[in-house]
């Protein structure tokens, strides 16, 4: 009699503790977020930005809003371009450019400028996305080919993902009241087209491709340039790679 009881007691305590440990393991960041080596033939999309080629014309911002029905007001962007001006006195000012801005033409050189350039920004489609980690309902997720999408049918609009994104890439769509962001134009790339912003860039400052492909503009970009990512210290493993990124860029 005692033997049976002891066995049962032991059995259930093992079950319980095993369940507790399993439960704790489950709440740790899911292994599926961080990728090791995808299977052969599996596409793994990435993006390249050549800062030195961007002319700040904002064609990409226009095209993205057209292609993806992003509200036209200047408060919601899937992609935008920043203008950096570093002056000789060491200060750096940044501004987001506006498309079709009727700016006064600058005629003479501004002698106080030391360096100045444009930096396109978009969702970094991180391999280890903090936005996916915090979504309470699993509305935002990472596809097998490395694109982070938002399911606007289940998104409850809690905005946790918007808080968790270190890059300001997300916004709450004012019409659907769900989170929205760049999707690498998933509807285009799944048909073999380029994302709209890459399509219209006049200087090939934006490059898109499969990181697993052996020979592609993306692989050449990664071979020939010193590559940076934004905020590497946060370990989000962004998949938008910048060439010639200045240290002033956040």
């Amino acid at each position: 009699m005692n033997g049976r009881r002891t066995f049962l007691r032991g059995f259930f305590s093992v079950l319980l503790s095993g369940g507790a440990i399993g439960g704790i393991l489950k709440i740790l960041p899911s292994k599926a977020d961080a990728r090791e080596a995808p299977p052969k033939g599996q596409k793994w999309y990435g993006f390249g930005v050549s800062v030195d080629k961007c002319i700040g014309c904002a064609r990409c911002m226009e095209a993205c809003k057209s292609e993806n029905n992003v509200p036209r007001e200047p408060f919601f962007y899937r992609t935008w371009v920043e203008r950096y001006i570093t002056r000789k006195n060491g200060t750096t000012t940044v501004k987001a450019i506006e498309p079709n801005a009727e700016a006064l033409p600058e005629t003479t050189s501004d002698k106080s400028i030391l360096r100045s350039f444009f930096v396109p920004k978009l969702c970094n489609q991180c391999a280890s996305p903090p936005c996916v980690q915090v979504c309470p309902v699993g509305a935002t997720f990472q596809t097998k080919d490395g694109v982070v999408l938002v399911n606007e049918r289940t998104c409850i609009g809690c905005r946790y993902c918007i808080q968790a994104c270190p890059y300001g890439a997300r916004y709450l769509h004012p019409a659907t009241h769900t989170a929205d962001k760049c999707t690498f134009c998933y509807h285009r790339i799944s048909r073999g087209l380029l994302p709209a912003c890459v399509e219209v860039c006049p200087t090939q400052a934006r490059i898109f491709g499969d990181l697993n492909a052996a020979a592609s503009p993306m692989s050449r970009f990664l071979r020939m340039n010193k590559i940076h990512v934004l905020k590497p210290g946060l370990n989000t493993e962004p998949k938008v790679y910048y060439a010639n990124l200045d240290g002033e860029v956040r």
Partner: protein
Amino acid sequence: MNPEFIHSLQDLLPQIQGYIYPNEIEIHWGLLIVVYPYITGVVAGAFILASLVKVFNVREVQPLYRLSLLTALAYLLVAPMALVAHLGHPERFYEILLTPQTSSAMAMFGFVYAWYLMAVLLLEVWFVHRTDMIGWAEQEKGVMRFIHRTLALYSRDTGERAVAFDHKALKAITIVGIPSAFLLHGYVGFIFGSIKANPWWSSVLIPIVFLFSAIVSGVALVILLYMVLTPLTGGKISMRCVDKAIDFLFYAVIVDFSLELVDFIHRVYQSEEEIKILSEMVMSKLFASLIIIQVLLGMLIPLLLISLTKIFKKRVSLNEDLRKMIYFISVILIQFGIFATRWNVVIGGQMFSKSFRGLTTYKMEFGGIEGLLFAILLLALPIIILAVLMKVLPPWKEVHGEGASEGVEVAG
């Protein structure tokens, strides 16, 4: 799309200083998300106060025991309302229960909340009141009798075995309840503290600071309610009880203040990249709410006032009314201070850009679901619920009291 909303964003444009990412102009977590941790904080604090009686046998604060439990329950019922109201799609809130993402602190919090409500607070309230409800039901008629019979789950057993079980269960639940209360509000702190993208929030100390400021606000609120409700229900305030509770409050405020001071020193000493924009934000946008309200009015002045009552107690016996007035002012200031703490954490965390180059502004609306009016309503609602609870489960009319409460004389 709401043209009013677009208009309100346009009004914010001239208020931007420096550079913010274009999407950051909209502050996403507003007044409702400030109200929410304040409310859950009170829950945790009130429950910890109740536990002082049950687990640590602090007999002096016995009169506060049932009041704290009911306060905790009233506030806990209102807490999720703030959250659901804030959602972009409140009608989809059930998704968090159907497909919760286990890596999300927000999703897991839903279960911690459910656990705390069901397994801890409701059970404790039930066990405390079961025998009394049976007693009251025997003497009542009509609706009240029905309510008490149903709430007691139609129990009639006041025998030794049942009562002994009640006491054992209460002890066990309170012991489990203390870490559960810690977990409840610590989790809210973790929801903020785990966001590595935001250096104002991302800190190991945030869950701890949240917890201690919760204890401060909960204890202070229960004292405040006791001092207001006891005369209203025809009782007499026990100064012995209030003095002891203020003692605990005093030590809690000291710990809370020390923790916040440590966080501040740590940030300034380490002087990481974000310190420039954060200092600018504290000294410009958050000066009134942080330096004046949170620190000065909410912590330093109450500490000073309460210290005065302690220092002068020995040399000159302060008359009771003066002491009551000082306590009353202190606990009210503390409420404002803790609310300001929540404001500074939530709103402050969104007023600076993650590019560390600029600041934006939060414009509080008056009407609408994110407006001041609704927030005031949500803050008043727990008091109303408490009034109802006190009618159904009067805290100072025990039939079989757990040790006669010292000094509480119930009129009539």
